[in-house]
């Protein structure tokens, strides 16, 4: 058996990447395996720690202040407040293009639905859009992009009571891109200032786009766009646009597929590479072999062949119900690789609330762990001595309602990566 490492991380989302990064930085030989591409590309790119309490109180000003009052089964309580802070510092080091680390206070960011969202960290690309800023704002949408209706977003923000005037304008993107043009197409044209056809002549897309926006500006100090402003050269695109427009340019985070998420994914994989971590994407972990409560290796399926990957310590960061780290059928709810225990009612009609936005039990489904994040079986004993869980595969919290998904992934990933490294050495 030749594919071996000190620590093997299963999953390439925020929790898996943070686990691997923490392990690599504390000296472990670490390998990350991810079935599919990172789910970060579906994420807004905002990094929340805690926006609301489990009872729905909020938006919270200080996310850290509320952690000691969370229910004991909450993953933040498992790892403790100090670990959450340390973990966020690791994130800040790994992702220098993020802001918000100067304060414990949540920032308020506008969303593409026109709501205002409390969040702990945000990309520099979004920073000029913070809602606590009183400068007037112009939002610019694109005719062919149905996901961002600038007028609608502006009206919603106004209704939310933001302390500035906000207006929406819609322009046509130069080159008349199709209605289903991909965000990557816009980004590439802006990155390269690529030529497009405008009234029969070839014109550089970014230059022409700036011209069109200029005509819509009416003295606003900041201009927001859907998150399409460049991919590999995003900072350059933003700087060029700000200079030409004479206003701060920012992006409003969008739904999937999301460029801010893609950029964060790229950055974190780069950080892992720099830290000496190994990674591979494309094949699922299907099974494992254990001896007396000790996982010996997992089996990675490669087009029908089962290939063993051995390690001293394993980290399960496969995601929740959406990421498929937790699955269910008519019979029950289960964790598909190690079959870790997941507490749930036998009657599947108890899994959800009848109200769409009600308090759904399924939202908190996940594995329960001991104080070092090792999953527990139904009798409360540790399932495997060298398996830890991180991120959305954990139970005991509802990340969508609390706005705590990223923070829990980072904090538990950090803890799992560090503890696994310590155990492996």
């Amino acid at each position, binding site marked *: 058996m030749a594919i071996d490492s000190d620590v093997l991380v299963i999953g390439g989302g925020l929790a898996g990447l943070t686990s691997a990064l923490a392990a690599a930085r504390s000296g472990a030989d670490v390998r990350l395996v991810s079935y599919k591409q990172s789910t970060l590309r579906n994420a807004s790119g905002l990094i929340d720690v805690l926006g609301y309490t489990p009872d729905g109180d909020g938006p919270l000003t200080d996310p850290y202040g509320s952690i000691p009052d969370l229910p004991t089964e909450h993953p933040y309580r498992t790892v403790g407040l100090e670990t959450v802070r340390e973990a966020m510092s690791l994130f800040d080091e790994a992702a220098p293009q993020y802001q918000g680390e100067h304060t414990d206070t949540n920032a308020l960011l506008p969303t593409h639905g026109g709501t205002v969202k409390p969040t702990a960290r945000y990309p520099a690309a979004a920073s000029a859009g913070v809602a606590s800023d009183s400068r007037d704002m112009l939002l610019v949408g694109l005719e062919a992009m149905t996901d961002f209706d600038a007028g609608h977003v502006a009206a919603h923000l106004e209704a939310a009571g933001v302390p500035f005037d906000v207006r929406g304008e819609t322009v046509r993107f130069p080159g008349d891109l199709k209605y*289903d043009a991909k965000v990557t197409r816009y980004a590439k044209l802006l990155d390269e200032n690529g030529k497009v056809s405008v009234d029969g002549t070839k014109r550089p897309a970014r230059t022409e786009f700036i011209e069109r926006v200029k005509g819509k500006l009416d003295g606003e100090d900041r201009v927001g766009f859907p998150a399409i402003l460049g991919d590999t050269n995003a900072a350059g695109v933003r700087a060029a646009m700000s200079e030409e427009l004479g206003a701060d340019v920012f992006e409003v985070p969008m739904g999937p597929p999301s460029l801010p998420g893609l950029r964060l994914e790229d950055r974190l994989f780069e950080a892992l590479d720099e830290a000496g971590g190994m*990674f591979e994407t*494309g094949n699922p972990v299907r099974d494992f072999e254990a001896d007396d409560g000790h996982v010996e290796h997992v089996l990675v399926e490669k087009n*029908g062949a089962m290939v063993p990957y051995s390690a001293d310590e394993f980290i399960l960061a496969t995601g929740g119900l959406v990421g498929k780290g937790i699955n269910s059928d008519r019979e029950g709810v289960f964790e598909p690789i190690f079959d870790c225990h997941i507490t749930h009612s036998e009657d599947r009609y108890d899994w959800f609330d009848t109200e769409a936005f009600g308090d759904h039990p399924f939202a908190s489904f996940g594995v329960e762990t001991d104080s070092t994040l090792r999953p527990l079986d139904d009798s409360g004993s540790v399932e495997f001595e060298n398996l830890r869980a991180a991120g959305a595969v954990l139970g005991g919290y509802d990340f969508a309602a609390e706005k705590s998904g990223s923070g829990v992934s980072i904090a538990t990933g950090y803890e799992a990566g560090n503890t696994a490294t310590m155990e492996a050495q």
Partner: protein
Amino acid sequence: MSDAESNINPADETEFEPTAPNTGEEFEPVDVFPDSDDFDLRPGADSCYKCSTCDTNCPVAEVDDEFPGPKFQGPEQWRLKQADGEHTIDDSIMDCSNCLRCDSSCPSGVPLGQMHNTARGEYVSEELDTFSVEYIRNRILANYRTSAWLASKFPRTSSFFMNFGPVRWMMDKVLKVPKERDFPPFAKETFQQWWKKQGGAAGSKERAQESRRRRGEPVDAEKKVAYFHGCYSNYNTPEVAKALVNVYEYFGYEVVVPEQKCSGTPMFANGMLDDARRHAEVNVSSMSDLVEQGYDAVASCTSCSLALRQEYPELFDIDGVDEVSDNTFESVEYLRIHEDIRGELEDAEVSGELAAEFGYHAPCHARNQGLERQAVELFGELEGAEIEDVGDSCSGISGTYGWKSEKYEKSMKIADEMFEHMEEGTDSEVGMTECPTCAMQMEHGTGYEIRHPMELIEEALLE
């Protein structure tokens, strides 16, 4: 409480009560799509929840406004076809380069590669005129093996003739094969000819046993592989195939080279599924016999290994196709699984020509098999050589795609990022990749000499 146990009063069964659905009472399954020999792609189409991850991975959609992207080519087109009997496959399917980036990206497991191959096959057989230049040109390109076989009879003449100005001008005008490209030179001795001189399987067995003695392994160890070399390393780059044989024998493996045809990759990409099937039948038949005897199949071309592992079982129902798929590996991957090659390379050193800084490009088809990082990982600690990943962009050539005049510019636009990273990221003018056509594109855009990882392994461990 299950549905069957739920207590429903028949009188109320028209009332919908979400917590106690009245299903299961008189349910009769309906066969929505009656018996047919066609592929049933419905499970794939149903799994698509339109997150568009595939679209953000598509290198063509990034540069071409007219290309509607993989989400349309796959699940949406399939649904449209079910909606009415009149919907035919959209001609934009021919702009898909079959890089399969979408296929490996889908978080929901939609078999986009299979959907695209099926759609393209249907388009070519139903919509494309077999007397059209496009069809004829594509058929010639797809059947590269035939041309290469012919050319290898007169390698010097062919290499000259294929790149002779007036000939290329004619080919551009008549066949729409871009004159900008250089045809790869044909080897004076094919790999197969060399292999025979080496004594074939019997010679390999002897050398493998010798290695096992040297390595302190049991002389009769069951270490045997069937090598699928593909067309390119036979006719154009036999040095890659020879390196593979030498490296495998060094690790104590007996190599056999079974009867084989084209893997079918260029045929899938051109919608020539009948041609592909004919070749696949030969390959599966000879490989499955060997698998039964305990051999594993290895390929040095990542598109060949992908075809045998994934595209064959997705597209063809041939006896033994699953067994071959389950036992086929990319050649470096196989050594990583079974040997401590990482450790041996950490202790090794290269000097001479291959002591260089390689700009490594991971082919899309390697990415699809989860192999995009293995060269970087393996050679990271190798003394004398350095390896720099030139990023995750597609090389743009996608086999025969960049060999079509109307696609040439697009192919170069896709490759821009890779060329740039190669030139910025490395000091020596050498590149590395597993895929022969990616290598062609890398050389075409930068003038670098491009090597296969197996050649560096050979240099490090054997020389």
